[in-house]
């Protein structure tokens, strides 16, 4: 925390205010005194300039796509087009009340209907609900739909969801939220699901399998049709985690791989901004037999225009209104700008960049976790050898990359590869940026050999060095309090 980055509370003085934002005081004497607050909340008391300067300065302490190469695997940190942002900022969209009558909402509803149809086309499924507010909520919706489907058929003994080893943590967490137990299925050495292990795992208790393709290993699951057949033969359903859809956009439709239900992360594949942790958006798509269970509301089209519709056996509502509408508008604008041709190119260039980067890193002396496989839109480097040789870890590399002006790749995921970096350059990065990353990695490797300490103690060029996570967890300090010494 640099001196210019004191907390907003340290900047305040009693009685100061951003006066242009303070409406005139009005009486509330008709309200019973015992229901009113005696002491005002200790919100900051700052001028407008102080607030603007403080938060502008804070923003500059962030790495972001707009500032840096951000190859965070599994997160698809691609350019977020300003045009899409502008489209969502139109007054009619921003000021529309979520419960405004349908006749006053035809513009918005038309947009949602268009997006539903585009996503249906993209995923190869007949029905889509836009309401889930993030990938994890999409997963929840999908697994809840699987459960509702089995229950409606009186098939109540199914109690397990299968996930491949190395799945995103959300998959088991979601299964648990839907009342299922989780069983992991081993992944073979080549990165594909171990078919023998899958056959041994499925049975009358199998409600479904959750997986992504390309898998979390950064390779295409080649035996996906066989996986689907085995799960379907056992009476289970297949859930597609759309985390890695960017690799396949315009190449393969999840519906054609045998999946029954899925979510799409619009904040990845459809380039909506990640916002420092959210909002996301995770629309769900469903095959025919699951369509009736989709979360509501969805947008239908009738003679009198567009209207809200509840799917007949809907699992219900997932939010107060209809999800992250403003993100959905951005995704629509992005899809319209890409068009058919542009969507084909997304998967192609994401894959081209990843394979090129993988090849160049290999040439620079790094080990790929799956050297005999094509990379998808991302790939895994394992630093196990460097760890043995120089004592440096994947985390050390990640922190040192920050010194080279780049955001780190995803570290230590998936769990099945030791000392790994999951690297996803995305299609919107130029070859020069990718080359610069290779050069930075090569220099760090050289440093590890000659001066490992500089890598182990990185970063060195940021306002702060590594933070003490243990202290943070043992001595919880989760809010500012008056009297906290200011640095």
């Amino acid at each position: 925390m640099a001196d210019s980055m004191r907390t907003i509370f340290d900047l305040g003085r009693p009685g100061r205010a951003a006066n242009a934002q303070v409406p005139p005081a009005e009486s509330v004497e008709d309200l019973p005194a015992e229901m009113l607050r005696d002491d005002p909340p200790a919100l900051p008391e700052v001028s407008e300039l102080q607030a603007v300067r403080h938060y502008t300065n804070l923003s500059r302490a962030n790495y972001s796509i707009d500032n840096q190469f951000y190859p965070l695997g599994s997160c698809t940190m691609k350019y977020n087009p300003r045009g899409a942002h502008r489209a969502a900022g139109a007054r009619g969209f921003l000021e529309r009340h979520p419960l405004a009558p349908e006749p006053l909402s035809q513009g918005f509803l038309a947009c949602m209907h268009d997006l539903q149809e585009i996503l249906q086309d993209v995923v190869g499924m007949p029905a889509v609900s836009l309401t889930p507010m993030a990938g994890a909520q999409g997963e929840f919706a999908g697994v809840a739909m699987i459960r509702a489907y089995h229950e409606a058929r009186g098939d109540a003994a199914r109690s397990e969801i299968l996930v491949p080893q190395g799945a995103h943590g959300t998959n088991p967490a979601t299964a648990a939220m839907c009342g299922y137990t989780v069983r992991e299925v081993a992944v073979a050495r080549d990165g594909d699901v171990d078919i023998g292990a899958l056959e041994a795992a499925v049975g009358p208790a199998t409600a479904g399998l959750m997986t992504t393709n390309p898998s979390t290993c950064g390779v295409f699951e080649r035996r996906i049709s066989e996986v689907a057949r085995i799960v379907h033969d056992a009476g289970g359903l297949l859930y597609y985690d759309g985390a890695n859809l960017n690799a396949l956009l315009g190449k393969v439709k999840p519906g054609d791989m045998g999946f029954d239900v899925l979510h799409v992360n619009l904040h990845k594949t459809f380039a909506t901004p990640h916002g420092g942790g959210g909002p996301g958006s995770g629309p769900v798509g469903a095959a025919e037999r699951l369509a009736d269970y989709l979360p509501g509301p969805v947008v239908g089209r009738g003679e009198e225009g567009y209207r809200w519709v509840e799917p007949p056996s809907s699992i219900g509502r997932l939010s107060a209104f209809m999800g992250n509408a403003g993100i959905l508008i951005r995704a629509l604008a992005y899809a319209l700008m890409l068009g058919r041709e542009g969507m084909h190119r997304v998967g192609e260039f994401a894959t081209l960049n990843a394979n090129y980067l993988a090849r160049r890193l290999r040439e620079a002396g790094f080990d790929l976790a799956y050297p005999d496989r094509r990379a998808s839109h991302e790939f895994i480097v394992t630093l196990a050898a460097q760890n043995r040789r120089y004592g440096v870890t994947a985390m050390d590399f990640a922190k040192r990359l920050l010194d080279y002006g780049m955001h780190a790749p995803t570290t230590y995921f998936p769990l099945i590869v030791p000392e790994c970096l999951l690297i996803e350059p995305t299609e919107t990065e130029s070859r020069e940026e990718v080359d610069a990353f290779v050069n930075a990695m090569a220099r760090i490797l050289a440093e590890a050999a000659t001066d490992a300490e500089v890598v182990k103690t990185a970063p060195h060029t940021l306002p702060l060095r590594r933070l003490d996570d243990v202290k943070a967890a043992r001595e919880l300090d989760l809010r500012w309090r008056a009297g906290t010494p200011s640095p």
Partner: protein
Amino acid sequence: MPFIPHTDADVAEMLAAIGVPDVESLFDEIPSALRSGEFTTVGDGLPEMEVLRRLGDRARRDETGPCFLGAGSYDHHVPAAVWDIAGRGEFMTAYTPYQAEASQGTLQLIYEFQTMMSELTGMDVCNASVYDGGSGLAEAVLMAVRANRRGARGDGSRVVAIAGNAHPLYVAATRTIVRNQGIEIVTLPHGEDGRVDPDALSRLPAPPTAVVLQQPNFFGLLDNVDTLTDRAHEVGALVVACVNPVSLALLKPPSLWGKGGGGGEGGKGGERGADIVCGDGQPLGVPMASGGPSFGFICTRQRLVRQLPGRIVGRTEDLDGRPGFTLTLQAREQHIRRAKATSNICTNQGLLVTAATVYMSLLGPAGLRNVAAACHARTLELVRALELPRCFEGPFFHECVLDVGRPAEEIVTALAERGVVAGLALGSYFPELAHGLLVCATEKRTGEEMRRFAQALAEVRNG
């Protein structure tokens, strides 16, 4: 191609480096039977100008006259600086602050946000936000059940009583989300005065694990939260408060509800006030935007912090002892705890939290109080201007149910034709209130707009 920077020369050189003849070869591990990337609905790509024109035309179709509809989404003034700051690329295009050293901006901002929300609610801690108020209530209910896992009766029962005048769409979302976790939801009915009868709790067949109270309630009324909180604690239930954050600049914070002194597990020796506070942050600088993105918040007591779902930021030090911020208590979360996580949630609505934090800084305690008081005053004015009887007597904050003397749905539709967003017809949520129109006036509504509303209403009712 939009947003793809590669020249033909780049592509050729990159393919040569990889050692493949063409891009297509990069997909050679995909079985040909699966290659079906043809689109039928997606059209030709459009330039930004054309997309903005088309979507702009649609947006203009939805522009309306003044909005008198609230029901969980409120048309407040948003200071210009709020989205100038939140829209900065450094906030908008960053992701979750896992690399703390490169994310101090987002992390410090969330820490300040946690502080401000704790101040408003009177609680010890707040999370870094969840998706929205509706799903946030579900998370708060799940949290309460975990925190009171022995159940009010000590038998591990999982019954949650939700006030019948809580937001019906929040309750709907909650039912969807908790359905498969063996939790029974019962309703604490409201009486003819629109408020929860303090004796309703004792009429339940058994004491619940948690009680959900909304203040102001869905009808805009100030409810009997003091008595209800104490009664809930007396029977061993935890109290989940669902609140409007702007109202808390004026109203007693949930931490001070009741007198305390109740016994039981939930009360932990009779601590005063709610145990968990949740709500939607949209009123704090976030446009209505068709209901999202907004953000939900969950605040709680220190003793329950490990049951709190979602991200949490803590202050710590770097290797040189300089203060800094980092995500903490991550062992609760899905990426570590997997099937045993407090929730599957990963997202916090960071961008909206950014807006809300700037908003609260600009408004300050006096500004936010005055906004709350102005909303209350405008709504009093509106009720006078519309000259309709109220369905419920008693003090309200900035919403009120009026009796329009016929199905309110008709009124809403007719006023929509005149460009006025009149309010919410309650019949589809509360059949007994088919004539009830829930109206709201924020600080933005002017006397002129109210006169226009009153005039249009009179025309519709007399015509």
